[in-house]
């Protein structure tokens, strides 16, 4: 693992706990999807936790973040309440969106998390606009946009890169390259050297790092985020990683080369962070306790979610719009 003066064991241990919380959240989300408690679509972030956690550790509450369909990890890392998120996945009152959004639309504006997104790459253009607002309002904030390696081939992302650079906007693009898009190996549909080269062709500094190396993500993004805050303009981090599970919870990922996922376990970020923590004198017991705590915390949220009330039918008609808002029952 990369090492640096910033790698305080306590800081890393805290990040580790965030990773555990995400992992436990995702395991529970998957289980409850299979049990039929969570409906729709659930894209788990298992195996990619170091990216969200390492980057968000360098963000302030008021910084903004946009995500994509695999957005639970980013939300928790940015400080969203995982209990409200679990309630949202269950479609209950008390959920982040009161049950109206679900997994693909997790958002917590109170911590600057402007939303997961069901449409690939749409977060990119939203991000550059948010950054433009920040400039106009003369605020001291930045925007981080997460995107997958499949998403980089949508035009709006490329437009957003150009846009961010010409207006010199405070945006960090983070491409989470797990090397796959649903069932498609992205190398087969991505021309050239990939996103870092593309970003550089727009004059946007880009760096490719091992996204499963928590300390490296933390240190790299600390430096880059600092530069962006100081007015460097947009930058891009390509974080290499591996999706340990299927594309969504009901995907068995049979298209994988046999053994690939098992082999990848060796490089997955939770274990790697544990190994590092042990070299820093953290005991196996402390790690086990942390894992238990995360699991228990999330288990409790699942219990809470089961217990939480369903929304009222009338809630379906609120939050649509002020002008011309629909009326309950008018169409039925």
């Amino acid at each position, binding site marked *: 693992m990369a090492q640096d003066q910033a790698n305080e064991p306590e800081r890393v241990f805290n990040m580790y706990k965030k990773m555990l919380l995400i992992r436990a959240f995702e395991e529970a989300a998957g289980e409850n999807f299979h049990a039929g408690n969570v*409906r729709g679509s659930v894209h788990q972030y298992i195996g990619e936790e170091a990216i969200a956690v390492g980057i968000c550790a360098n963000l302030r509450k008021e910084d903004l973040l946009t995500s994509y369909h695999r957005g639970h990890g980013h939300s928790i890392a940015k400080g969203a309440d995982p209990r409200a998120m679990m309630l949202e996945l269950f*479609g209950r009152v008390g959920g982040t*969106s009161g049950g109206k959004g679900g997994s693909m639309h997790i958002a917590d504006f109170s911590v600057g998390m402007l939303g997961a997104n*069901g449409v690939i790459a749409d977060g990119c253009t939203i991000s550059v606009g948010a950054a433009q607002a920040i400039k106009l309002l003369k605020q001291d904030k930045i925007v981080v946009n997460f995107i997958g390696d499949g998403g980089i*081939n949508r035009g709006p992302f490329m437009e957003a890169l150009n846009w961010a650079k010409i207006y010199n906007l405070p945006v960090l693009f983070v491409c989470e390259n797990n090397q796959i898009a649903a069932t*498609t190996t992205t190398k087969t549909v991505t021309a050239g050297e990939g996103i870092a080269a593309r970003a550089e062709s727009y004059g946007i500094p880009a760096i490719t790092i091992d996204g499963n190396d928590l300390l490296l993500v933390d240190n790299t993004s600390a430096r880059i985020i600092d530069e962006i805050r100081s007015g460097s303009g947009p930058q891009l981090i390509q974080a290499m990683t591996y999706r340990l599970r299927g594309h969504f919870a009901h995907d068995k990922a049979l*298209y994988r080369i046999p053994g690939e996922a098992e082999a990848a376990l060796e490089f997955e970020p939770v274990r790697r962070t544990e190994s590092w923590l042990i070299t820093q004198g953290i005991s196996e017991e402390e790690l086990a306790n942390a894992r238990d705590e995360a699991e228990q915390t999330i288990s409790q949220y699942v219990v809470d979610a089961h217990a939480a009330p369903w929304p009222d039918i009338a809630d*379906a008609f609120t939050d649509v719009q002020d002008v011309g808002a*629909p009326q309950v029952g008018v169409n039925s």
Partner: protein
Amino acid sequence: MTEMTYAQAARLGLKEELERDPTVWALGEDLGFEGGMAGQYKDLQAEYGADRIVDTPISEATIMGAAIGAALAGTRPIAELRFSDFAMCAVDELVNQAAKARYMFGGQARVPMVARMPIGIRGGIAAQHSQSPEAWYAHVPGLVVVTPATPSDNRGLLKAAIRCDDPVVYMEHKGLWGSVGEVNENDVEPLTLGKARIVKEGSDLTIVTWAGMVSVVEKAAITLSEEGVSTEVIDLRTLWPWDREAVFSSVIKTGRMMVVHEAVQVGGFGGEISSEVTEHLFDNLKGPVKRMGGARIPIPFSIPLEESYMISQEQVIAKARSFF
């Protein structure tokens, strides 16, 4: 007759066309291994090659645009957009190019392509994966709009769409993928675009519907008929052109009409049918044409809210009773 699902029937129709015509091909995300969202392309890549069942990058604008170019250049592409919601990333290509090329170029060009974009609600996939924008495309000159409701139709209409020389917006309903029905494998002829299906005959009330609402309305009609309101059900099958003759003759017979669709009622295509019937058959009407469509709200995620959006058999029955 063979029992098969709506998805299997679509696959059969596509396979038959791939077999028949070497210029037919399909492009979209995850068609190869995944075989499409519901297996409607299953194993076809293995059989017809990666040049005819093409896995694409996530580039909807180009999936649509490339299909247009390929159609102009002598092939019959099927652009698979997965969800009509994602097809919104390619509205420009569909509406500004595919729909207009033949006209703008004074008849020099044809755009024989299928833009395949499933519609509708299916179990909590929420606001960005559940829309039914068929009314938009029926409003666009140059486009044909098809909304199959049964396995058999999903084979016969898909074949017709592929053979059509006009760009066809082909809107399967996601909630129907697993529905089962009889398909006559021996009858390999495509259906005729623009011909409705009389699902059930009746003499007191006509209900016009399509796509996911057909089975709901059919069940409601059975109950209604049992209870003395002889209800005729018409599955439009294609919204443009819609089968004026079938609808008009039915209304002339019954004197009462209702249109039911899952799409948002405000601005939905029900308004078109209602207005045409009213304007041309006013003297035949024993009461106003009525509409049932979705509330003007994004589709909510939470299951009870989502369910409340959907039109139920009971609601159809209640509204039908209000005629009498």
